[in-house]
């Protein structure tokens, strides 16, 4: 009887902790538990407060001094207000449009260039790769970049939010590295069967690279969604502004940060509306995040970061 119990206990203990490791001191365990709770709270509480404030009634928020941790009388009024048309609704559409179009174009250009540069002994492969890598070392400054956008006539157009950031060198290098790791035999076999480079890209490389395509695509999408500086510099017409720039101008300006260009109409908007805009600008990130997360586990990213 005793023997059976032992044999049942042993593997369970092993599953958690290797046999050579001494059981942790209760004080250590408590300390770790406290540390974990503090870390989780530091990340989660700000989000909770912002979401709660956006859902609370303006009167409750005002009575509590500008914030609530839990909405007593939850309502979606703030969201109805910002989505009923007007500045925020239009900015949301702009952000969605720029993100969708930008991600598509960026991913396309990156895949094509990475594929071409990943083929062995392609014409100009090495010098082009060196030129690409050099931009890592010497990224263009704010002023020259602005002048290029001005010279190309892109000022005040949505293209100015996409063209200057079309290809990200880091993403390109990650993708090229992944393409190079695919077994060359596959391409040889395809070549013997008479496949063109286009067929190889479509039938071999892309189907085998779904994970890296997803990660790079999501990276592009996140950066397009989060971008605001290029819009600030390149777009003169406020009606073309993306959501992040609207948050920057109206929400940050509504707090302790002042900005001359802030509109009076929204400055006086209640805290609930401001926080609803913040939530709206964050939601897409939180929605795509679980998909991104799946690929961290696969190690695509840690591999990429190491290289």
């Amino acid at each position, binding site marked *: 009887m005793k023997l059976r119990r032992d044999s049942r206990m042993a593997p369970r203990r092993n599953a958690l902790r290797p046999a050579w490791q001494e059981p942790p001191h209760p004080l250590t365990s408590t300390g770790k538990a406290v540390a*974990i709770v503090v870390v989780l709270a530091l990340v989660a509480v700000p989000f909770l407060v912002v979401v709660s404030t956006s859902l609370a009634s303006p009167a409750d928020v005002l009575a509590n001094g500008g914030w609530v941790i839990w909405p007593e009388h939850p309502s979606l009024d703030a969201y109805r207000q910002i989505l009923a048309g007007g500045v925020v609704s239009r900015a949301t559409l702009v952000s969605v449009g720029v993100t969708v179009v930008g991600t598509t174009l960026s991913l396309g250009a990156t895949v094509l260039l990475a594929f071409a540069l990943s083929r062995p002994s392609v014409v100009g492969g090495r010098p082009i790769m060196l030129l690409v890598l050099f931009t890592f070392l010497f990224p263009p400054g704010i002023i020259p970049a602005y002048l290029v956008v001005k010279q190309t006539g892109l000022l005040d157009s949505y293209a100015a939010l996409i063209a200057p950031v079309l290809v990200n060198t880091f993403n390109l290098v990650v993708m090229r590295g992944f393409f190079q790791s695919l077994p060359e035999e596959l391409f040889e076999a395809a070549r013997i069967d008479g496949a063109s480079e286009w067929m190889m890209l479509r039938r071999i490389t892309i189907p085998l690279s779904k994970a890296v395509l997803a990660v790079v695509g999501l990276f592009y999408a996140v950066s397009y969604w989060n971008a605001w500086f290029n819009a600030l510099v390149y777009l003169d017409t406020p009606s073309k502004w993306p959501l992040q720039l609207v948050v*920057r101008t109206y929400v940050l300006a509504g707090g302790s940060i002042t900005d001359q260009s802030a509109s009076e109409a929204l400055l006086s908007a209640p805290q609930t509306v401001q926080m609803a805009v913040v939530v709206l600008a964050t939601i897409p990130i939180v929605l795509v995040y679980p998909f991104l997360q799946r690929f961290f586990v696969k190690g695509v990213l*840690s591999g990429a970061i190491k290289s």
Partner: protein
Amino acid sequence: MAEYDAARPTGASATATERAKPRVPWRSRWRRDRILIAFMVPGLIYYAIFQYGALFGSGLAFLDYVPFLGLSGSRWTGLENFQRLFGDADFWQAALNTLEISVLQLVFFFPAPLALALLLHSLVYTKLKRFVQSVVYLPHFISWVIVIALFQQMLGSTGMLNGMLSDYGLHTVHILGNPDAFKPMIVAQVIWKDTGWGTIIFLAALANVDEQMYEAAALDGASALRRFWHVTLPAIRPVIALLLVLRLGEILSIGFEQILLQRDAVGGATAEIIDTYVYYHGIRSGDFGLAAAAGLFKGVIGVILIYAANKVSHRMGESGVYR
């Protein structure tokens, strides 16, 4: 088709021989690779215009640039912009602020991911570990605009902290918009946003430590602390050293967007960094030559620092960013 097969080398060994003596003439290589060249076109146009075009545009640091006349019409003034730049006390203040914030980040932000990674690595419940990881990675993907909005809602004058302080009858604290608190606040925001993300590389290094070394050490009677000192630390030291050196190489690059968003609240004396100096003098005031000179100065120093950092990491026996 036969010519095509013969022209393209196969496998890694063939690539190496071809690199040594390219026997295939250029014209037939172009013909062979025409589809691949077509693939490159969109990306290369981007690099030519927006990376290299902008790089050569940096030349306007040597011009008395008048937007109406354009690059070719503006007068060449040599180093005049640089003389003005180096004579400007505001610029040196911006450089000093940049360095100060960078050093603060090095001291307070750099160890944070390592500490969190050690904590995460010591968790034995895989599910809990995964959960904590997914929570702490999230802030990395939130834009700076939102991060600062969150900080305002927590620490601002009408935020949660001050709300709770006044509820308990205590003095409220003036954190955001307070020049004295600005630099620590910048570091705190970076810690909040990127500590979790920074653990990835340390966790990868910790996962690569040979489990048998711990076991052997434990059997020899080493305590948990000694195992950490003699096994864990030596195993992850190369990663720490490499990241440290890389960080030193980028000491002039600190969060431009983050600081630009908050600069106006505290004023230029404490919050101006080189990048915001460039933005305000160039885009806002239209002194393109001076701003471009400041940008170019930062870029050149950056290249030198990265080069030096790379040399140092080679000397330490690490691989560095490039070979």
